[in-house]
């Protein structure tokens, strides 16, 4: 069982992870190079815990104990007692490679170094280390505090023991897991692609309109939401960014080519519910 977790990066993801792990009883060394950002993140965690207390989902005692378990750190060497270090930095391959190189030097030989990247190659990140067998990806599906699933991404050199310990950690914090190879989009983003792209091609070919396709997918396929409702909710800009990353990381494989309709919508600012218009209109939502 993991007793000491290191978290690198005090953005929304890092703070969410610290919150979840501390509530699960894990001692968290919470690192950010910027002390101000770190303090702000701790305040956010405190506020969120208090909300959970008010909602009755967490007791006052458990919230207080969780806060006690989060230790602010501004030097990487202070993560040296961690069994797993979870990197939650921005999606920049050079930054991550540099970070992993330093993390390897500053932590125990047995420490697992995990990245939460959603688009970068774990094998590429691991190439900056001397022990790529202990480098792994932990891709959280959904907001981190309410994640539905963790994709455990095995780099080319990641060993079984690293994967096993990550499965154990994920279970301990209450998440189901799947294990995937280091392939662009991992599993969920890649396998969701036809659910978004094929309907776009169908409306492009005027076989059916967006409303019809959503009705068909719900009534015939049993989907809780149609593809166009889902895209509008998620934001078409976000969907397009994922599609473009997949297309690029698959070196232009035609199956992943983003549809021009999606690009046109984003260019026109019709990015979904948040903009008041996407494939459907949301007159009450427009800011």
């Amino acid at each position, binding site marked *: 069982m993991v007793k000491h977790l290191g978290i690198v990066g005090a953005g929304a993801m890092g703070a969410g992870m610290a919150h979840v792990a501390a509530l699960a009883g894990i001692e968290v060394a919470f690192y950010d190079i910027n002390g101000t950002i770190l303090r702000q993140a701790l305040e956010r965690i405190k506020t969120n815990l208090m909300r959970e207390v008010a909602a009755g989902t967490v007791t006052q005692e458990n919230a207080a104990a969780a806060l006690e378990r989060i230790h602010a750190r501004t030097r990487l060497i202070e993560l040296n007692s961690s069994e797993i270090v979870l990197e939650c930095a921005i999606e920049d391959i050079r930054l991550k490679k540099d970070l992993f190189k330093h993390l390897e030097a500053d932590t125990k030989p047995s420490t697992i170094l995990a990245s939460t990247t959603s688009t970068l190659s774990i094998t590429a990140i691991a190439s900056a280390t001397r022990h790529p067998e202990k480098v792994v990806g932990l891709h959280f599906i959904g907001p981190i505090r309410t994640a539905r699933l963790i994709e*455990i991404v095995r780099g080319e050199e990641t060993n079984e023991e690293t994967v096993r310990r990550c*499965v154990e950690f994920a279970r301990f914090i209450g998440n189901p897991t799947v294990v995937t*190879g280091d392939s662009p989009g991992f599993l969920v983003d890649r396998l969701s692609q*036809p659910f978004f792209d094929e309907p776009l091609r*169908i409306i492009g070919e005027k*076989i059916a309109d967006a409303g019809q396709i959503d009705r068909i997918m719900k009534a*015939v396929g*049993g989907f*809780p939401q149609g593809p166009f409702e889902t895209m509008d909710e998620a934001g078409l800009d976000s969907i397009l960014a994922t599609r473009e990353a997949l297309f690029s990381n698959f070196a232009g494989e035609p199956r992943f080519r983003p549809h021009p309709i999606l690009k046109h919508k984003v260019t026109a600012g019709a990015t979904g519910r948040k903009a008041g218009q996407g494939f459907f209109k949301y007159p009450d939502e427009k800011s």
Partner: protein
Amino acid sequence: MKSKKLTVKKKQTRITKPADASAVVYIVGEAPMVEEYALLCSGRGYRVLFHCPQMNSGKMPFESKAIQRQSRPPVNTSFALELTNVDLEQKRRNLELLDKVLPATTAIVSSSVTVSATEQASWIKHTYRLVGCGALPTLSGAPLIEIAPTVFSPAETVRIVQTFFRSVGKEIELVQDRIGLVFPRILCQMVNEAAFALQEEIASPQDLDTAMTIGARFPAGPIAWAEKVGLRQVQAVLQALWKDLGDERMRGAPLLRQMALSSSWWKHSQPSSEERHSR
């Protein structure tokens, strides 16, 4: 010609009365779909006669007084369903026989996920009577069916078809007559991508399904869906789309083609990551 069609279609409205024991639905096609639609129609009061050319001997488990086998369509058929997706030569023979034997007033709804309804209509003399539909195994229970009128279909035929499907508890969604229609096309592409992922050995079949049911909140994973619908059906839709559109994106995963030929899948035989990493 138009006024004749109007007249004959009016006569056909009698099939909208499911309680009418004289209303006969004739179903011909591939086994799982024929059985599903036979049970659906008989459950709504129709007398069903069916023919499965691929299973020509022995009693089928779903046969009863209300559902009987008959290789030649009876002339008193009120409504005909042709449900073949894989063997298109057989489909053509089935449609030609239906068109030859059935009165010119009887509508035919034919699955059009692997060949367009318009092309099918061009195989028969009474082109106006045929309308396409989205039929794949296990979809018969859905409350909606995709209907694709052909370039020959008059509005009357579509109305009759709508009335028939309402009588068996289904709404219709009218879509353009293209191979794969909407749901079968999207579903088969999702299965195809999963087959590519399996081929690349990036995850176990179980993890692929878990990723999509839990991670993407899909009602079923692509492997489970392929098993339900049938690999040969999925492969037939993909092959037809690829042939029709000439689009590289529609290329079926080689592994899927091989599995379809052997009619087998992994059947979830490989352990999931949860099982593999349990102590």
